[in-house]
């Protein structure tokens, strides 16, 4: 639109270029809001207020609509993720094969509930509705590696392993 300059990104961080590329590819249309939010989360790991404001201005959408979409969809998170992520699948097959026991063990061990991150920022505990690997239930996705058919003790030692090993 004539006379309307695109807003400047919240910071000089190069990752904003990826977000801007997504919006440009979609012609800065309002209907690309969800694609854009995906792009922000992929680049930064989460959505913060600055990001939402920037997206709203760029796509010329009311901030309420952007905030609404960001909080409506479970996939989006507004908290920074921990260094490691442990996602416990709570799909039906995993549930009846013992996912609650896995969650219990992890919650006790690290003192956090699903959706939370340990105070030192090392580990986020998350749940997934279903990752679709039901044949190897119960499934845990540890730093993007899918692991199946594990018991509570095994999963805790896996997580320990990743945290001690991880850079």
């Amino acid at each position: 639109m004539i006379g309307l300059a695109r807003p400047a990104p919240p910071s000089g961080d190069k990752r904003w270029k990826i977000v801007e590329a997504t919006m440009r590819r979609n012609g800065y249309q309002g209907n690309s809001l969800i694609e854009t939010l995906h792009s922000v989360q992929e680049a930064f790991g989460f959505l913060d207020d600055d990001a939402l404001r920037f997206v709203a201005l760029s796509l010329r959408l009311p901030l309420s609509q952007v905030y609404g979409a960001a909080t409506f969809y479970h996939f989006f998170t507004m908290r920074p993720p921990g260094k490691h992520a442990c996602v416990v699948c709570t799909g039906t097959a995993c549930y009846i094969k013992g996912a609650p026991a896995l969650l219990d063990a992890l919650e006790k061990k690290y003192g956090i509930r699903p959706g939370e991150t340990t105070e030192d920022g090392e580990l986020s505990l998350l749940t997934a509705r279903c990752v679709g690997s039901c044949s190897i239930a119960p499934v845990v996705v540890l730093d993007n590696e899918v692991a199946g058919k594990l018991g509570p003790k095994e999963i805790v030692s896996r997580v320990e392993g990743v945290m001690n090993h991880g850079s």
Partner: protein
Amino acid sequence: MGPENLDQIAAAEKLRAQGMRHHICVCTAAGCQSAGSGEVKNALAREVADLGLKHTCEVKGVGCMGLCSAGPLVSVECGEDRVLYQKVKPDDAEDIVGALDGGTEVSRLVCDTRAPFFSRQMKIVLENSGRIDPERIEDYIAVGGYGALMRAITEMTPAEVVQEVIDSGLRGRGGAGYPTGLKWSTVAKANGGQQKYVICNGDEGDPGAFMDRAVLESDPHRVLEGMAIAGYAVGANHGYVYVRAEYPLAVKNLRTAIRQAERLGVLGSDIAGTRFSFRVEVRLGAGAFVCGEETALIASVEGKRGAPRPRPPYPAQEGLWGRPTLINNVETFANIAPIIRRGGDWFSGIGTGKSKGTKVFALAGSAVNTGLIEVPMGITLREIIFEIAGGIPDGRRFKAVQTGGPSGGCIPEQYLDLPVDYESLVKVGSIMGSGGMIVIDESSCMVDVAKYFMEFCMSESCGKCVPCRVGTTELHGLLSRISSGTAGARELAMLEELCEVVRNTSLCGLGQSAPNPVLSTLRYFRDEYTAHAAEGRCPAGVCKTEKEVHA
């Protein structure tokens, strides 16, 4: 690009394949991938290269072969001979490649493909799955791919295509079973001359269901071909595939497929020199179960919160951006190309009176064989669970089979001889659903299962209408109290009454069907509810009741 070009590509691809003596196909779909098939494939490729067999032996990644519980699966083909290996480790590569030329097989890894798991299936949707490389369009074309689209746009009128789909008797595979041909003809008739859209619903949100993911990962071109044929039939030139962001491999394979199809000219402008143009875009879901509902899905494609709206007007009249829109599920579109290729009459010859063709199920839970299966409609639940799935492991007893996810119900043993079709499953209080099938054994508590699904619906309710937003929360609260043994007969009566209210007054399918798991377990496992409510005891020993906590 025209039919003759397709033939050339197919011929070249077949010639290339014939040049290879052996084909080692490694399943690289999500199930086997999480069991480590990527490393197995690398190890096999290294071994082939080390032995200098690169020009006679091909190692390729293929889609889902079905028996995910025995993954990683590797299929070795030589002419007509085919050996299937199960639970393959990277260390097995040496033996597998070593056995190629001797004509022997590595007996410790062989998976018997004469077992009922394989022999009782019938594959239409999954005919290419596990056979072709999903990342190469040439492989799809070599097995006849895009031939149906060429035939439709060069030899048939749009009305003839719609008629073929009507004749096939195909019904929506997303769960509700609305006749596909009828939907197509409604969109085709909607206000001529204006923009129309085709949407593929790949928002497979049911926990325990992974059919659509498998189809998109294993044979993405089949879905694109079905969508393009639909576009031609209803007069749309633009399509969207709405896929869950939780399925990264499906998204990647789909995007690759769209790029390849556009480059080859089977998607894009003026396909095959006709005036028909069709483009497809991918839209990512963001984790909202309600977006499987068509009006919510449309809102999400428009970039808004996925809140449903009342129907009518149906999307066929006013859909995406207010334009007539055809929405079908992934599996429905995957059935289209074979119907055009082989005729509606062929398709309607399979299945039962009102349910035609086959259905893909994701078998999970307490069964010996779990994975992806495709069976003709009309097969009994008993055949699926005790023959194909191989029964219940560890000597436990069968208790129920759950179909339809949070919108479905639990079917007990006395109905196992029921034929699998849309009407029969509804009659016993469940639904066909999109194809999740979870086997439950005696170690599970049905009140707990009902509570699990209600927790799901409560958290996934979009909050737009009161009966669903408040009702599912109240139902979950009641179920929690029953399961903890702190509720009595009064709460049980309230539970039943509230189920009826939520079912009858919710705005969309999510709320209307949310009580189903409760109602069906109340119907068949009432004794478990009363044991919790009257005696404060969980017969399966799953729920921690107050009594036990105190003891």
